[in-house]
């Protein structure tokens, strides 16, 4: 049984630079097994944070990327056919609850509301997961915890969590780190010089200024790391920024020009 869960263990320390007191808060929340909700724009380090915390707490981490077509069975499990008939296959949530892992539901608003409610009995004092098709009630392992992430700015008009879901979680706000921290992260992750990392972060800040003025979302730290990785491979800085920063976030020719110009003001 333990092999199933061992594959989910985080063995090497993921690089994570704390921005504020989020590590301590999370540790405290985990100690009482409070379900956590991480909010913040895409690519600002939510997933990395969970990996880091799983490593720090030495707990396995099961990540589920949520999407619109995901159903409750995809989380809980289902019967599959094999040579002897059908057999039950635990879904990721059931595995986590059975073996005591941190279950991380990424972009949880993407899942439909009838899917999200299956986590309800696991996220209050009951801490159970009923498998109705199998007729089993899993009592969650003491180490089990649910973490969800979502991006409140993104399509929030149409998709939102139900109040009953929201109120089962403690919330941590994430945002892009401040200039120096972010440059340090970019430099560390990619190996570019701190000078180039600094410039990349400055470009991202220009783009973040345009959020709501033609851009839906600013340039994320993740994109900067992509750009930095290209630069390390001796790609010209202009080209790297074009490929990794500007082209992915906009189709608007004016916006593209503006961002290309912003790149040129930092790399000449």
């Amino acid at each position, binding site marked *: 049984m333990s092999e199933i869960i061992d594959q989910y263990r985080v063995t090497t320390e993921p690089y994570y630079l704390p921005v504020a007191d989020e590590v301590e808060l999370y540790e405290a929340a985990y100690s009482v097994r409070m379900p956590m909700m991480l909010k913040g724009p895409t690519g600002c380090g939510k997933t990395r944070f969970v990996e880091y915390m799983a490593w720090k707490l030495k707990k396995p981490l099961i990540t589920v990327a949520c999407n619109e077509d995901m159903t409750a*069975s995809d989380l809980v499990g*289902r*019967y599959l*056919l094999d040579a002897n*008939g*059908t057999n039950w296959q635990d879904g990721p949530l059931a595995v986590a609850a059975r073996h005591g892992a941190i279950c991380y539901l990424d972009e949880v608003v993407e899942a439909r509301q009838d899917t999200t409610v299956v986590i309800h009995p696991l996220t209050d004092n009951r801490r159970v997961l009923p498998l109705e098709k199998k007729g089993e009630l899993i009592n969650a392992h003491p180490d089990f915890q649910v973490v969800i992430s979502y991006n409140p700015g993104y399509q929030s008009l149409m998709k939102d969590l139900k109040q009953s879901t929201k109120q089962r979680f403690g919330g941590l706000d994430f945002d892009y780190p401040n200039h120096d921290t972010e440059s340090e992260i970019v430099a560390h992750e990619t190996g570019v010089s701190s000078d180039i990392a600094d410039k990349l972060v400055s470009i991202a800040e220009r783009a973040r200024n345009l959020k709501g003025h033609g851009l839906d979302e600013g340039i994320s730290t993740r994109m900067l790391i992509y750009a930095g990785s290209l630069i390390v491979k001796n790609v010209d800085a202009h080209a790297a920024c074009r490929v990794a920063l500007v082209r992915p976030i906009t189709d608007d*020719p004016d916006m593209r020009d503006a961002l290309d110009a912003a790149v040129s003001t930092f790399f000449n």
Partner: protein
Amino acid sequence: MSISLDDYKELLENLEPESVALLQNVWPEAVKIFSPRGLDNYLKGASALNGLGRGRGLVDCWIDETPIVAKEIGEDIVGDLATTVLSLSSRTSGAVIELVLATAPTAAKRLGDAELFQNYLQFLNVLIAQAPRGVRPMLDKLDVLFGQLTLGGLRRWALWGAHAHRTDYEEQINYFSLSSKESLAVLQKERKGTLFVDVQRRINMYMRALWARDFFMKPTSGDFENREGYKPFIESYFIHLPDAYDNYGDVSATEVYRAAAAHTAAHLVETKQPISAESLNPMQMAVISVIEDARVEELSIRRFPGLRKTWASLHTATPDMNASMGDYLNRLARALLDPDYQDDDSWITEGKMLFAAAQDQLDSYQISWDIGVQLSHRFKDKQIPFNARTDIQTAPYRDDNRYFWEFEEFDFNKSLTAGYDEPKQLRKHVSVMELANVVEVESAGDDAQEICVMDTEFFPYEDMGISYNESEGKEPISPPYHYSEWDYQIQLERPDWATVQEKRAKMGDIQLIDEIATQYKREIARMKFLLDAMQPQGVRRIRKLEDGDEIDINAAIRSMIEMRMGMQPDPRIMMRSVRKIRDISVMVLLDLSESTNDKVAGQEFTVLDLTREATVLLANAIDKVGDPFAIHGFCSDGRHDVEYYRYKDFDQPYNEIPKAKLAGMTGQLSTRMGSAIRHAAHYLKLQKSAKKLMLVITDGEPADIDVRDPQYLRHDTKKAVEEAARSGVITFCMSLDPRADQYVSRIFGERNYMVVDHVERLPEKLPVLYAGLTR
């Protein structure tokens, strides 16, 4: 080494004797400020200005003001100042130049930087070209303007006015002298500090959360003359808060707002009995005010302990402030509020003791009255005179207590209804009998208090086949809707710039619509299959899945049989239930400008005919699929009159009435698209659907009679589309203008447009487009 004025004799030769005298007066100061080179520039400037022959005032002004400017931001600027002033001389009067010089020290003080000052000079240069009449009134108000605006803000404010009133000199003067409404509105927008409007919602929620009731708040504008209005006050049951606060030391402006709102709310909540100012002198009233403030605050702090910190951080009085009674009042106020504040003054200690002794009687204002009277009596020992005008509390959040003294006339019932407007007009939907029985008020007009509405036509008794509506009715006028417009040149929204007027669409012959259906029978038949497939079908089972939600028992048994027979089983034994629902609202927005009356090239029918046909087919299609949809149209006649027609609304069935309205559709005037899109988006936003689609059908680019710059309305439309997108409305444009590629993608975005090359094919294309977009 001393520099004597006499060394520069040759430069001074032409000056008037009075100017020379003035120069001699300022000389000692000037020598301290300027280097020899600077002095040279200074005097050369004076000489050059004299050479302009615009009178002595100009020269004197230069002599007087330049040293102050140089003192503020360095002498290097003197050359620039002289050049600017000289270049202005060919374009404006001596008086204006004089004013430029006279206000230069103000600008220098506020800007505090040579480079900024240079920018300011450039800005003046531009402004004199654009709004020559506006410069003088603006310079008159420069102090006020700089008191509230950054240079950027000033620039935007001024250029806005210059653009808005380019030809209307009178308005220009009004605008720049800050006496027109728009001027103040734009100024408000550009003002620094935190604006009340920005935090009002936050403060409202805060107050509602604390006291579980609503308080009505209004911004009060700082009056420029006497700064009254910068203090909060309560009047006619409204809390008036300043329209902008700057940060107060380390305390953020929002926090100041919070403190002020909480303090005024404390007054409203804790003052329960009327109070009388009878037989009190102003000094007693001032002291009572301080105690009363402390009393209501103490009571609020008992409920919300954190308020003490909020308020205490805004008190700055210290024990060494003892010049006036005002100082003592401030110290007393602080001592009563802030337990950490140490003040050994006997009067203040007495106040503290009295207040502490009264801790269990704070429910009544009477205690404030008693302590106040006693303390003000004791204050006479200090031999400090009281001045009611200057000896006031300085903590920025404290109101002027006028509420407290006017409380006698306070009406609790009114206070609870304050802010809730009573409906001005009651509309009743009635039956025929009820309508026949009501007594009509002959003299009532459109503003009648009560109006009866009947769903059907009402005919008079002596029925001649003419209803009341036909004989006496008139077309209802909708209230105007104001929308901002984006001016790309000044990068600023022009507040409430365009006015949308809704007009009632005229009915046409419904026969026309039926003919269209007959004419396009073939296309409709072809569409039928497509549309049937789009209709929502409720829950559907998808079988033969490897990873469904449930086991499909038939498939499972089949697989088991195959297994027992030693055959390869089919692993797809699961099924899944999928709910097929459609959740989209569609708004069709038609451009009804004059150009739609043009004949389609080589054809007998007009663009409008074609648009109507296309709309009818589309409406049939959407109606069949069952999505909620609306059909609206617009045209415009300048920014004051954007006409908007509603042919079909979302909640209206697609029956004879919308069809007749569509038949009566006409094309006229111009295309101010941005405002129309904003108005249409306003209707779409009210829809509850998850997806909202706006289809704009137009035959040309945005244009209007009062706009000459073709870019202006394009940029505005783009902005309107972006705003709509932010509230979840997807805008798609179908353009009949074959040259539209150049601009339409810029306005609506790379993917959200379609240019119809063969206009004749529009009627068949439109429903297909709808089907494609919403599938």
